[in-house]
């Protein structure tokens, strides 16, 4: 039983610590600096923002 308690206690301390470290690292690395820029990643020069793709059926337009 003590072993289990140690594992439990250890993981309870360790995991949030790692999570915090990851968050700090990500912030320092600029991952959150330009979230808008990351949001643009699916787009490129040939299909930039504003170009709709896949509208192939009839339907009412605009």
């Amino acid at each position, binding site marked *: 039983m003590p072993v289990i308690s140690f594992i439990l206690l250890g993981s309870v301390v360790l995991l949030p610590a790692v999570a915090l470290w990851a968050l700090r690292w990500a912030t320092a690395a600029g991952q959150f*600096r330009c979230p808008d820029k990351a949001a643009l990643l699916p787009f490129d020069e040939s299909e930039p923002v504003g*170009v709709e793709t*896949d509208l*192939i059926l009839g339907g009412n*337009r605009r």
Partner: protein
Amino acid sequence: MSHQSQTPRSQTLRALLPGDVGAGSGGDVQTGGVQKAALAEIDASCRVPVLFFFLSGLGWLIAGSLLAIVASIKLHSPGFLGAWEWLGFANVRTAHLNTVIYGFASQVSVGVSLWLMCRLCRIPLPAPGLVTVANLFYNLGVTVGVVGILRGDSTAIEWLEMPRYATPILFVSYALIAVWTIVTFRLRAERHLYVSQWYLLAAVLWFPWLYGTAQVMLLLEPVRGVVQAAVNWWFAHNVLGLWFTPIGLASIYYFIPKVIGRPIHSYYLSVLGFWSLALFYNWNGMHHLVGGPLPAWMITISIVASVMMLIPVITVAINHHFTMLGHFGKMRQSPTLRFIVFGAVSYTLASLQGVASALRSVSEVTHFTHHTIAHAHLGMYAFFTMVMFGAMYYILPRITQREWPSNGLISLHFWGVALGIVLYVVPMSLMGFLQGTKLNDPTIRFLDVVQFTLPWLKLRTVAGLLLVVGHVAFVGNVAWLLVRMFEPYRKPVVRILTGEAETLAAGK
């Protein structure tokens, strides 16, 4: 964002890329030495392996749907096909689950995931032949597994029924695919990560661990007693949460912005959603054992984690809703958007239903009833499968360079499966709840509860038939598309491939 020169990519790995892409000497600093490939080039590189995964997946979908119909009929008419032992209810039901999960859903996931990864990494798929070979082995594994189940070799461990002689084949080909996804990621030309890649990477790293642990602890060196149940549900719930859900969400995060030409509402929220899912989902599994013979602390932890799932779910729902705001009308024109939005909405509903049925008071009623079956189909079908259909509508024309041959079949597919799954999930959820209430009332005879479920089970067969109609329509359209691939060159209709819906409509 100042990009300094990156760690040099491994030359051995880079050699896998087509010459002009991998050369790197002309690559600008921004891309870390590898030039970004054009979309058409990326699509073309994925053609063979992704087609293999999609087509074999669809083959299993048809097989799985037929097995589902047989199982459904057997539940209200137990004598149906009763003479053949190998077609017994449990065999057919189990073969259905394993064909649609491992044969269909997982294979289509891999196809979508590889294509998405290449597109977001901006490189062609390295060594596509290797992936194709992995696909052939994977299908061999599924075939051996399903035949084993029908022969009566099922392990009777839910979601892991494939016998021991089939699973290593699956594991090895799966590991190969996972490694290849990571190799593709390492070679990426776009250094920045989109949220879809987070999900995809997580999925390919989580699944082999889940599957490996479950195989070792349940089949190779079985643990004693109810620990088996703990491992079983840790695995079975995580297959949904850490394999299918991330791939479904990765697709939603990519396809909605691509179709409507508008970035995701809040990238920040999407990252929050990812990490909260990663933290909470994997603790959920024990809510399948509420009231069972396991220590209370385990079950309580899972109930708490299940409730915490509200954070990622609501985050994702808000984000998708605000991205789509003002663009819902486009669902009429884009089959991809239509299926994906249906799936995204179902994700929210399925998750909320999941949270609710994890609570002790609700579980007391719904636990051993058809409510759980309805919930599983809301998650796996109304959410995940619909998203995969949407993704295939986008990917297939692009990798084959052919347009969808029939708009009518697209509509038939959508309405067949949309009505079918609503007709499945809504009545079955309600029926399960009533069934549970009756089971908990000891004054009602057990056989009377059984009789109560019969009309609902017949309705379920009807719903299942609607789904089959939709599947046949889709497979027909895909087959037609393939026929077109082999036709002599014909001036391509440019609707999808250049995104010029307007021009075509105007010309007609």
